[in-house]
């Protein structure tokens, strides 16, 4: 139970005791310790094993450093945004658009980046995170600094931090894996797209492979029991297919078996299989 809910329970408790003016039939000793437990049991005990996933900006900047080139018109068009009426699609595409915004900003396409900030703001409102973007201060800052890439990047970090804090304060961290699944798929798609255009970019190929290491934890996050009410079955199945296909690649098996192997390199055929699966999943996510 989060703190806000705890306070509501406290308020209800207060109401219960202040409103009743009739004498109770029985004298009950109030068990205050169990009430305290109820207030705190989830929020203040982290799991024994946890993980940190990289921000979309970090992923985009790593891809950029590895030689990822900018291609216009390959990101998810902002015109698709109103089509996302289901909450799951809204959350996934919040992640997709975050990755697209990072891709545009890092490639000095600030005007494109601004469009993505606008759709992210709209989607945030629809998925109950409007306070992250309230007062439109972020958009104002974006406009004031549109020519300054560093300032825009700092603004993106602020958005990420505000989102992170909001989700933590409102006990919504389990949903962050859904945003991340969208952002991860889009980042991989952008990487695969560029790599297919120019396979001499070894660094980029290696980076795409490296990003596979976080997939298991994304799946684990999606499988959080708190996400049980969301229809994530198809997404988890597709991500697990990507994971198991990757794990079965000969190059991957050889890499895992060799204790002295330092870097993993996929063959062209393996890369194509991985790329096809990523493209199929991305298409499912961005199509309403």
């Amino acid at each position, binding site marked *: 139970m989060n*703190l806000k809910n*705890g*306070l509501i329970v*406290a308020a209800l*408790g*207060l109401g219960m*005791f202040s409103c009743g003016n009739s*004498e*109770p039939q029985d*004298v*009950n*000793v*109030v068990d*205050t*310790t*169990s*009430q*305290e*437990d109820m*207030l*705190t049991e989830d*929020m*203040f*005990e*982290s*799991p*024994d*094993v*946890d*993980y*940190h*996933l*990289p*921000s979309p*900006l*970090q992923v985009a*900047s*790593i891809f950029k*450093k*590895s030689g990822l080139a900018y291609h216009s018109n390959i990101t998810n068009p902002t015109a698709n945004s109103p089509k996302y009426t289901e909450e799951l699609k809204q959350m996934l595409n919040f992640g997709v658009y975050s990755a697209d915004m990072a891709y545009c900003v890092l490639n000095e396409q600030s005007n494109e980046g601004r469009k993505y900030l606008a759709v992210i703001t709209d989607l945030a409102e629809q998925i109950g995170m409007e306070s992250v973007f309230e007062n439109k201060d972020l958009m104002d800052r974006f406009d004031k600094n549109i020519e300054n890439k560093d300032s825009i*990047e700092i603004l993106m*970090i602020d958005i*990420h*931090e505000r989102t*992170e*804090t909001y989700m*933590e*304060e409102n006990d919504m961290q389990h949903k962050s894996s859904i945003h991340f699944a969208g952002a991860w798929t889009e980042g991989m798609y952008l990487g695969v797209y560029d790599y297919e255009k120019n396979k001499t970019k070894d*660094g980029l190929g*290696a*980076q795409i492979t*490296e990003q596979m*290491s*976080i997939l298991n*934890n994304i799946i684990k996050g999606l499988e959080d029991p708190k996400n049980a009410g969301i229809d994530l079955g198809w997404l988890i199945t597709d991500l697990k297919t990507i994971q198991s296909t990757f794990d079965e690649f000969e190059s991957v098996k050889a890499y895992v078996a060799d204790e*002295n*192997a*330092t*870097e993993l390199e996929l063959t062209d055929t393996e890369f194509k299989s991985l790329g096809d699966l990523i493209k199929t999943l991305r298409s499912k996510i961005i199509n309403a």
Partner: protein
Amino acid sequence: MKKTFVFIASFCFVVLFAQTAANLTEFKENIETQKVEAKDALKPYRYDGSKVTYFNFKTYKQTKEVEVYLFNQTDYRFSFNGKSLPNDITVQIYDEDATITNRILLKEFTGVMGKNVVVETTELQKAYDSKKPNGGRLKRVFVSYAIPGVPGAENKTPTMKERGAMVLVMGYKM
């Protein structure tokens, strides 16, 4: 008499409940302040995110672990803030998770209670290179918090003095 007893019991419950909520609010607010402090210590590295690990000191030892990814061509800085620790803990950083029996301890430190401690991955990589020559580049690390047992702790119904949190803020070099 019965009415008076009910009133007193109810009053005590309300006061205790409100006090608990207030203490927890303060605990959370302190963590937000510590996050800011830990973030400041990251500079000039770029902030990437935070992970607050909450736990309750119990009569027995416990371990909590956080997996952090390290990507190619990137240096990272970890900022640990232990100002929400009522007792000290041991921070250990390994190359593998706890299921790997021969995992390598890259760094260990104590005395983080009440302090902010910064660790860089260049240091962890050096330790890895010396302990496992030809091991290549560290691709992830596992930050393990060894939480000691505290005699007399309330295991089932922890009080505020048993509640602790470690704030870990991560940053990367551009």
